[in-house]
């Protein structure tokens, strides 16, 4: 039996995304419908093993001179997403409507500007000091891209970063919802931004988790994960008659596995708890969910645990799929990127497929769809993001 929601529903009035699929949500939509992998060999730097990545290969915009201290790949990806479509105009409209002090910013990132720090460290090892253009607190620390966006846009509301590995930007959506519900803000820009870097590629490789070929989530022949990068921006606003036509963020369910730093609970207990909390916060039942965007990294442990979590929570699981074979795992950005994908599914009326899935793993007891479904028009979507530390978040989104 559904209960009364105990958190304020929020309107998502604009969203954009830069990813390996292209420079805006239209390119992302085309890619989702075509279901052709965007994973390619890495151009940005050399790595000592075989893999493919979801790289943003198009040129990135320059950071304005007054904010040069923030210049790093992460900030440039964020700036590119800000310039996509009419997103910037939407934020400016929100500032005009609510006042800059009432517009907050919450960033989810795991890498922040570490790619640029890696280049600075090469200088450090060679010369004994960091280069003059290295600004630790403006590029590397995990609030840096948040501050950059805040200054770029002239926002004056609360501004911070959430960095919980691969659940970062899903949790940022939850923090933003609470900022509006608690009346600190009328609008919050949520940013999920992560950039390719040696640390994550070689780090995941050291854990023997990186696939040499494009990843194949939920497939019996999976060989590991593929890493990607991206920037997804979502403008959240207090619900109002004039934004009633926009899709809504109902809730973000959060939990901890309390199990292991880098491996999920084998039965998916924490994952199930996050999904259940999202439903409970929103006053919805499992049976109402039309589609689940799985975290589905294509690591064996994740896929098995997540499928068990879904099967345990949903007596009749809805169609599920995962998009990381298309874009790679964008790590800290994944929660926001996949919230954007879920919003596209709600607004354009389709279910994404699972690029790379050919032979479903029989140990994954949920209905994973391989190809996009254009005959379905979902109204209620759960989107999962799970990270190191057993840090789980599940985002519940609803059509207008």
């Amino acid at each position, binding site marked *: 039996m559904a209960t009364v929601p105990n*958190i304020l529903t929020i309107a998502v009035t604009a969203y954009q995304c830069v990813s390996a699929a292209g420079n805006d949500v239209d390119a992302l939509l085309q890619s989702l419908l075509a279901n052709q992998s965007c994973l390619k060999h890495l151009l940005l730097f050399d790595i000592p093993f075989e893999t493919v990545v979801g790289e943003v290969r198009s040129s990135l915009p320059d950071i304005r001179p007054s904010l040069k201290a923030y210049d790093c790949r992460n900030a440039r990806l964020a700036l590119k997403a800000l310039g996509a479509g009419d997103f910037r105009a939407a934020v400016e409209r929100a500032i005009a409507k609510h006042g800059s002090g009432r517009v907050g910013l919450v960033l989810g990132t795991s890498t922040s500007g570490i790619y640029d*720090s890696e280049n600075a460290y*090469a200088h450090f090892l060679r010369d004994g000091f960091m280069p003059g253009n290295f600004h630790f607190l403006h590029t590397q620390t995990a*609030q840096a891209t948040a501050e950059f966006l805040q200054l770029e846009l002239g926002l004056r509301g609360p501004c*911070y970063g959430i*960095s*919980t590995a691969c659940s970062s930007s899903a949790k940022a959506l939850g*923090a933003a919802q609470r900022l509006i519900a608690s009346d600190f803000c009328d609008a919050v820009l949520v940013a999920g931004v992560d950039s390719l870097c040696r640390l994550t590629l070689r780090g995941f490789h050291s854990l023997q988790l990186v696939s040499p070929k494009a990843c194949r989530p939920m497939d019996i022949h999976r060989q590991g994960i593929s890493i990607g990068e991206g920037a997804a921006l979502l403008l959240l606003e207090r619900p109002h008659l004039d934004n009633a036509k926009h899709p809504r963020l109902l809730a973000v369910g959060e939990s901890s596995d309390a199990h292991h730093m880098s491996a999920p609970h084998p039965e998916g207990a924490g994952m199930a708890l996050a999904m259940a909390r999202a439903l409970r916060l929103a006053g919805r039942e499992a049976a109402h969910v039309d589609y689940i965007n799985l975290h589905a990294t294509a690591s064996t442990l994740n896929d098995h645990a997540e499928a068990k979590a879904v099967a345990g929570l949903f007596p009749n699981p809805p169609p599920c799929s995962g998009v990381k074979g298309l874009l790679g795992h964008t790590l800290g950005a994944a929660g926001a990127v996949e919230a954007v994908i879920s919003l596209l599914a709600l607004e354009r009326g389709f279910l994404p497929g699972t690029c790379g899935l050919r032979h479903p793993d029989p140990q994954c007891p949920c209905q994973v769809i391989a190809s996009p479904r254009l005959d379905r028009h979902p109204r209620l979507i759960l989107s999962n993001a799970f990270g190191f530390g057993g*840090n789980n978040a599940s985002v519940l989104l609803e059509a207008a």
Partner: protein
Amino acid sequence: MEWMSLLGFGACVPNPSFRSGLPFPAFDINRDAIPPLLRRRTSPATQIAFSAAATACTHARRPPTALPSIFASVAGEIQTTDLLCIELAKPEGLISPSAFHNSVQNTAAGYWSIAQQCTQPASALVAGRDTFAMALLEAWCQLACQGGELLLVCYDETWPEYLAHGRGEPAFASALVLAAGSVEGSLLHIGRPHREGNAVKTRGTLPFGDNAVELTRHSGMDRRNLGYRDVLDPRHPWNLGSGDPCRNDGGNLNLTALPSEGELDLGRCKSEGFPPALESLIAKMPVLAAIPLLHLARVGGDGQNISISPVASGWQVNAQALISLQGTP
């Protein structure tokens, strides 16, 4: 929600000189707060966070297993990240899988949830100079939206000196157990975080603005006044040396930005921000912004606005001290 309530707090400060000058109880790293298997695997950042968190939970008489947590830090696992970056810059550098998963910002939050068998949400928040203020704000929002109680830990280990000259010390962790609403018998009632009206004027300057650096640069350390034990006393010769277990570069760094006698009085720390001496310390190590609130929780006093961020950001809370704390947490 009109108030949140402080049920208990803890502070971990590895540097003995800095610790002894604080106006509230603080302790060194507490090995008993860290499960044996984790002691060798975890960084100073995680160890000071655990130590403060354990003290706060004991003080509040709350089992950690039931509490959602917010772990807030400017630089997170910066020592582990630094070592990885050095390896990545070498042609034959080796990346350790455990160092990699221990480099994420939510390492302390993750290990805490595992050690306490706590399945409640755990977050890792980062906000530069406003890290403590935004963490209190996030705590307020969680309690206002979902009620109950939570654990807030705000911590930073020392940063390698070459990453941010003159910044990133001393290592400091504070932990607060907070409850929604006005709880009888709590240490403080803390009001809604708010901003001093004119603070927004200064927005647009870079965080950790150059003024703070200038303050540091032009104030020398006065080694003559060795008798002053209170680090908040303007005459205290605060000195961090290589004996600090949280330093990894072995260097001696004498940092002080303590202004002339008599300027520091936490009782007058109101809308104008932190006292100058503390403001310059916080410019070096932003998580020290918790000090005035912990001080009030310790000594009590009339309700007042307490600064929780540097004046350039202007975040404050009204805090009502209900009882003066007897004994140490």
